[in-house]
């Protein structure tokens, strides 16, 4: 279980996250929905340990993560720009996590993940030879490979065209259910958020406006801002 308690992040004088509270239960998928600049990415980075907190605490299964460096946090993060290693091929990218964690059979595990995302046989391909959709799948396989207990995805479908996005959103949801993963899915697109999340957190200007199931959120938006954002 992941718990954010009053998490505050500042960049200089600007407060990017302002006392954010959020809980993600075991096996639960939470969509974080908000316009660009609302602090979605910063929230994921804070959980991954890539941004220091100005206040509040982040807990995993009740344990405070303060002082735990990113490489010991056991979370998966899929970057918006994928951040694939350009100097390594597809297999080496996916095998990176298991390998640096000292797991045996890193290559076998990586092949298994590539199979899972539908890229079997792409092992020796260079990153630059891949299409946007293929890069996105490699990034997903790489994030899944170390079997993190929590997966976070930052606008994973952002760069793809509409049709592909809708199809992949459904596939992702099925994958999460099949693997029983806890996941935080960040997006600025309501359709995606509603299709994927068990619950949806609406973020605006660094504060959580409302957290609810898709149905409840749709029926009773708590603030005017949420209502307006959902249309």
């Amino acid at each position, binding site marked *: 279980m992941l718990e954010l308690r009053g998490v505050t992040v500042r960049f200089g004088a600007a407060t990017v996250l302002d006392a954010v509270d959020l809980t993600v239960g075991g096996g639960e998928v939470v969509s974080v929905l908000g316009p660009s600049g609302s602090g979605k990415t910063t929230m994921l980075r804070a959980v991954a340990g*890539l941004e220091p907190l100005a206040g509040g605490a982040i807990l995993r299964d009740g344990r405070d993560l303060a002082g735990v460096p990113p490489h010991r946090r056991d979370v998966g993060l899929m970057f918006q720009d994928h951040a694939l*290693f350009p100097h390594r091929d597809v297999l080496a990218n996916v095998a990176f996590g298991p390998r640096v964690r000292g797991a045996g059979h890193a290559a076998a595990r990586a092949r298994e993940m590539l199979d899972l995302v539908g890229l079997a046989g792409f092992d020796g391909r260079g990153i630059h030879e891949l299409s946007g959709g293929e890069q996105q799948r490699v990034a997903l396989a790489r994030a899944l490979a170390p079997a993190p207990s929590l997966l976070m995805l930052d606008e994973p479908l952002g760069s793809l065209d509409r049709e592909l996005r809708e199809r992949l959103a459904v596939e992702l949801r099925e994958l999460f259910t099949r693997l029983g993963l806890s996941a935080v899915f960040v997006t600025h697109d309501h359709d995606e958020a509603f299709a994927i999340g068990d619950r949806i957190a609406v973020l605006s200007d660094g504060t959580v406006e409302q957290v609810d199931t898709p149905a409840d959120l749709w029926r009773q938006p708590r603030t005017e801002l949420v209502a307006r954002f959902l249309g």
Partner: protein
Amino acid sequence: MDRRRGALTTAALAAVPVLFVGVFFAYPVAAILGRGLFPDGSLDLGALGDVFRGRQVEIVWFTLQQATISTALTLAVGIPGAWALSRMRFRGRRIVRALVVVPFVLPTVVVAVAFRALLGTGGPLGSLDLVPSLWAILAAHVFFNYAVVVRVVASLWEHLDPSTEEAARVLGAGRVRTFVSITLPALAPAIAAATAIVFLFTFASFGIVLILGGPGLSTLETEIYRQTALFLDLRTAAALTLVQLGAIVALLTVTGRAQQRYATAQRLRATTSIARRARTAGERLALGANLLVMGVLLGAPLATLALRSLRSTDGALTLDAYRGLDEVRRGPVVIAEPLAAAATSIRYAVLASVLAVVVGGLAAFAIARGRGRSARMLDGALALPLGVSAVTVGFGFLVALDSPPLDLRGSWVLVPIAQAVVAIPLVVRAVTPAIRAIDPHLREAAAVLGAGPRRIWREVDLPIARRALLLGAGFSFAIALGEFGATAFVARPGSTTLPVTIYRLLGQPGPGNFGVALAASVVLMAITAVAILVTDTERLSF
């Protein structure tokens, strides 16, 4: 990531280069200051005062004068060359662009010998009687620095938007008017940067002035060497070095400003190249003239060098000069076999480039990771040896490293270390941008996947920077191979390098010695050429 730990890592990375540059650069320079200002333990400005009287004043003036004329001439020849290589598309453009850089990486001694072969007695232009003379120095300086002007100016020129020029033409401005009022101002930052660099290089030029200027023409650099090596007057040498240091620090400040403006101008550029084929007769003529200048200016000295090394004094083709490469020469001084010196040169150059890549690479990582003042200071401190002349490094070693705690007097290790000190700034310049260009998300992705800081460095930073590090290694090797200014001070009979041997051969009377010097220069040129071919000259930046 934990900020404090990051800062600590950066400090640890910086420790090795700071220590190295401290011991082998700052400490020697401080020792020179001590010698010059406190010759007997108390402040004495006598020696420094003497510099501004009599012959010494002439030397200071001559240093400035030859640097000014050299720079002006190089710009006059180089700016049209930059036009040809940036705006004109022609067959063989890529090869010409690569070849133009070659002179810049040649050892100064080879360049000086080539011009002596061309302009000196017995050469094709020997009747002009130009060696020794200011003209020979100027010609060699233009040859040497042409690449700097062409590359720096062309890289901006090829991205200037031609539509502003076309607008001026349509508005009624003639060709000249357009060039002066539109093109030239747009190129100003690049021209300023090139001017600063060329002035700095020619101001601190050593081998060329020493060999082509003869005993009559002295710059600060050559005078420091003469006072030390011939007259053993360390007090005067130290005073001259102080003047040199002061001038160069002032120049570097100006250079830094020019470079910064140039960097800004480069960022503003568009990404598409606007080179096109010559359309008018005038353009074809201008392009042809530029290619001819490149061919004659860059080709003639090197071709003469190679051809004359194959001819005997009566003009017959012979390999005699090359046969002399494995002979010990006995005259007023004994000169070891050039081939043995070549082997020594390669050994030292390997050592120096390893040192330079390790020290310079660590510095580059520290500078690229660091933020703010401390990183800028480290950057500036490590750039100093590039500007501050090799002669200062060599002389500093002589003065500083001959007594405990660092008594390395006469030790061969001083030679590769001196060469590394000269090469480090170039490694830093080649590697730092490559590390800065690494997307920080890659490191973060590696961290989230479970890699610790050291693992990230090894698996992300190092492999991506590898190309730049290899480039730095290649340059360092070429620089160390041709290094003359610093090596001349610290090489001893057992540790003589090929450039020093060539210089000794030039000073040795007797038939055949000049021929062997020519042959040895060809060998040195060939070894450098191989090193440079392996490295990628296209990516050389100044």
